[in-house]
Structures are given as structure tokens and as C-alpha cells.
């Protein structure tokens, strides 16, 4: 019994700590009625973000980062992204939580501008690309 009791927190910790495992352990315990060892999991998705060059210094140089999250929308997925890489937040969103004007975000091939904006649904296994727009530049002439 002691060995089983000791194994439970270890199993929970191992599963919860794995960045690649889609299962996030919520809690666990020994069910004395059934004599079973029970762990409750939450199924998470893996989302891959493609990070533009100018922002890779904030992701340790990574062009692609994988985030395990239960995100239903782009907003949720981005929250998970800056949970791991907090410096990205202010560079992608304004302080009002809007995507900056000259940034596009694509879920697969679809720009969220023409979908639901930050409320755009994110399917499991989605690839989200953050793209600096080709617009801008001298958008306001200095006379």
C-alpha cells in the first residue's frame, strides 16, 4: 500500500511536467472501494506556433514552439504561448488586448482577420503563424 501511495504523486508529477504529453494530470488517489489507483487527466492539445525572426530572441532562438493547452480560441492559445514566453505578449498585442495593426495571425492558412479575430476557434494540432505584415513603413509621412 505504501509503495502504491508513494507512486501516485510521482506519476502525477511526471505526467503534469511533461511538455510533450497531451495529458495533463489534475489529481489522483487510491480508491479503496475498487482498490484501484485513479488519476484524473485533462486532454490537452498541442499547438505549434511559428515565430517571426524579430521575435525569436524571446523564444531562445526557436522558430517553432509547441504549446500544450486546452485552448479553444486563438486568444486562449496566445495566453498559453506567453505563459511560456512572456516577452511576446506586448509585442503582439496592445495593452488593450488587440492584435497590433501590422501583425497578421494565421490558423493554418486562414487569417484570423477574416475569421473570428482572437475568438477564432483553434482545432487540435493547429499550427498558428505570427506574421509581420508587409504593410506599414512610412504609413504616415513625415512631411
Amino acid at each position, binding site marked *: 500500500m505504501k509503495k502504491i501511495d508513494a507512486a501516485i504523486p510521482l506519476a502525477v508529477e511526471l505526467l503534469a511536467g511533461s511538455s510533450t504529453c497531451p495529458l495533463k494530470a489534475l489529481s489522483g488517489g487510491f480508491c479503496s472501494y475498487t482498490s484501484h489507483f485513479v488519476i484524473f487527466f485533462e486532454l490537452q492539445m498541442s499547438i505549434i506556433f511559428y515565430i517571426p525572426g524579430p521575435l525569436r530572441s524571446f523564444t531562445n532562438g526557436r522558430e517553432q514552439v509547441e504549446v500544450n493547452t486546452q485552448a479553444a480560441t486563438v486568444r486562449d492559445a496566445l495566453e498559453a504561448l506567453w505563459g511560456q514566453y512572456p516577452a511576446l505578449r506586448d509585442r503582439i498585442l496592445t495593452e488593450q488586448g488587440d492584435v497590433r495593426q501590422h501583425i497578421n495571425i494565421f490558423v493554418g492558412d486562414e487569417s484570423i482577420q477574416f475569421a473570428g479575430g482572437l475568438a477564432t476557434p483553434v482545432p487540435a494540432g493547429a499550427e498558428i503563424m505570427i506574421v509581420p505584415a508587409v504593410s506599414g513603413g512610412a504609413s504616415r509621412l513625415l*512631411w
Partner: protein
Amino acid sequence: MPTTRQVSVKGGDVLLLVGTVKGAFLLRSNRSRARWEVGGPHFPGTVVYSMAYDGRAGRQRLWAGTQSFRWGAVARSSDNFGKTWTEPEAYSIKFPAESGVALKNIWQFSLGGPEEPNKLYCGVEPSALFRSDDNGQNWSLVEGLFNHPHRQKWTPGGGGQCLHTIVSDPSNRQRMVVAMSTGGVYRTDDGGKNWQARNHGIRAEFLPDKYPEFGQCVHKVVRHPSRPERLFAQNHWGLYRSDDGGDSWKDIAKGVPSDFGFPMVMHPHDPDTVYIVPLESDEYRCVPEGKLRVYRTRNAGKSWEPLARGLPQKNALDLVLRDSMAEDALDPAGIYFGTRSGKLYGSRDEGKSWKLLFDGLPGITCVKTALVEEPHSLSKSKKGKREKR
């Protein structure tokens, strides 16, 4: 990305901090100001509208307001003359979430007085004033101005709706004047809690009422510390002087080829001397007649004289933006300005003659100067700081 060239700054040096549409440049010279070493670009590819040097309390800190049209505007600082700059994880200057407003650009840094060595102010777009009491680590919105009932009617000028000028009163630190385009001049007499429009006498050519209470497009306001009650203003059409702290303004545009222009600079030692760079008109924003000329008054606006020796007098299709002119506090004073076409000019003799210091920069948006403390002064002030600890 280009390699950033560094300059070796020594105590006693004169610095020019030059912001451009594609980064910032740092020029250094000794006090002769005869030759300049150029460093940069810092923040290549970003617009730098504002720069400042903070030498208070033994610091040697540069500030830059950088703006990437993709990644937003962020205040960055360097304590080693640009070798490294802060790259904050979270942007320090932000409007509160409940304001519904997002920062577009940082237009001006202003330092508190020597008795407030950790105080900084920042003017931004859309027009607002931020204050820091801890040397720029944390910033807070000056709510008294942001919540002004006029704010809903402040409209953007051609360069954006911005608070570009901050002028404190060294004789009374509760008093400060700011200028915005558009909106005009506002003054606080109680440290920022309350603000009043101070535009009586300044015209607004583009409004039905030519002399409204507010809404003018004031381009620059300056004050000499020895005459705190007197202010000068360069307006979107109009040159003015106030002798009562901004309560009223008098037209002083007689003798200039045009009273349209952007920059205005106060002589560091003479409260009657002011420099401007007139432009043809708001429709044609180039210097009049193709002649690049600085105009100076030495009698508080009663008359103006052109200063052109060394400046191009043919086909100079150029302009100087509102924060692209500055003075140093040496004697004789140095005056400097940078143009939209990337030319940086300087005068070591208070404008009598000019020299092209550097050509080929990106469009210049900001020129500031700094005098780096002599080594013995620096160690004295740092020693004082250590003793206080």
C-alpha cells in the same frame, strides 16, 4: 541587420543624440566640437522620435523612445552609451486597460529638476503625459490631463495626435506646460492634478473660430530657466511670446519669411534669443525659396535675422521637424539641427556659421544634446551617492 558602431565616450564630451526613421545615432566630440565621431545605428529599422540624456545623481543614462510599426512603442535605456540597451519583457509605458487607449508612439522625455533626480516625464501619442518617480522603471499616466474634458476633441495633426512638448518651470515645480498637436498648450499649477488650456491669442487657421480656447496645433514651446514667466511658441502658422506664463500670447512673427515651421530652440544663456527654421507653408513643407535658413531673434521676437552661412541656399528642398533642433550649454553655445533628408548641421558659434556634420542619415526625427560630466565631477557625484547610502 547592420553592425552598430559604438563610440567611445569620455568625461567632458559633447554628445548629439539623433533619432531617425530607421534607428538612432550617437555622435561624440570633445568640447571643441570640431570633429565628430558617429556611432549607430541603434535599433536599426525602428523609428526613434525621442531621446534624452540623464546625467542627474551621477547617472550616465540614455533614453530612447523607439517605435516599430509592427511591435509597438517602447522606452529603452542604456547606461553605457549605447553598448547595451534595456529590452524589457513587459513594456513599461502603457495606458491602463480601463482607458481603452493603446500607445502609438513616445514623443518626448523630460527630466525632473535636480531636486527630483528620479523623476521623469514622457509625452506620448495619443496625447497623454506619463510620469515616473523611480527613474523610469515604472510609469503612471497623469490622470489629471488624460481625463480633461477637452480630450475627446483633440484631433490628430499631420504627424499624429501627440503630446510632443513638456516644459517645466524651474522656479515652481508644481507648474508645467505641455503642448500637443492638436489641442494646443495646457498648463498645470498643481503638479498635474488639474490642467487648463492656455491658448489665448494663438490662432488656429484650420478651424472656423480662429482663436478658440483649445484645438490649436502648437508645434513647440520653449522657456528659459532665468525667465520662467516667459514662453515662446512656434505654431502651425504663427510665432508667439507669452510674458505671463502662458495666460496670453502675443504675435512676434514680423520679419520672418513664413511663420509656419516646426522647431524652436532657446539659447541656453540668453533669455531673449530663440532659433527657428521657417517653412514655406503647410501645403508645401520645404524651406522658403529653396534656401535653408535658421532664423534668430535676439530681442525676444521684436525682430528676426537669417543665419545661413554654410547652409545651402539653392534647391534646399528640405525641412526640420519639431524635435530635430537642439542647443548645447557651452559658451559659445552650439546649435544643431537635422533635416528630413538626413543631413545633420551644427554651429559652434551660436548660429553665425554652420557646418554639415553628417550626411546620408535616414530622415531625422529628433536631435538632443548632452554634456557628459568631467571625470572629477562624476566621481564627486558618485561619491556623494555612495555616502548617502
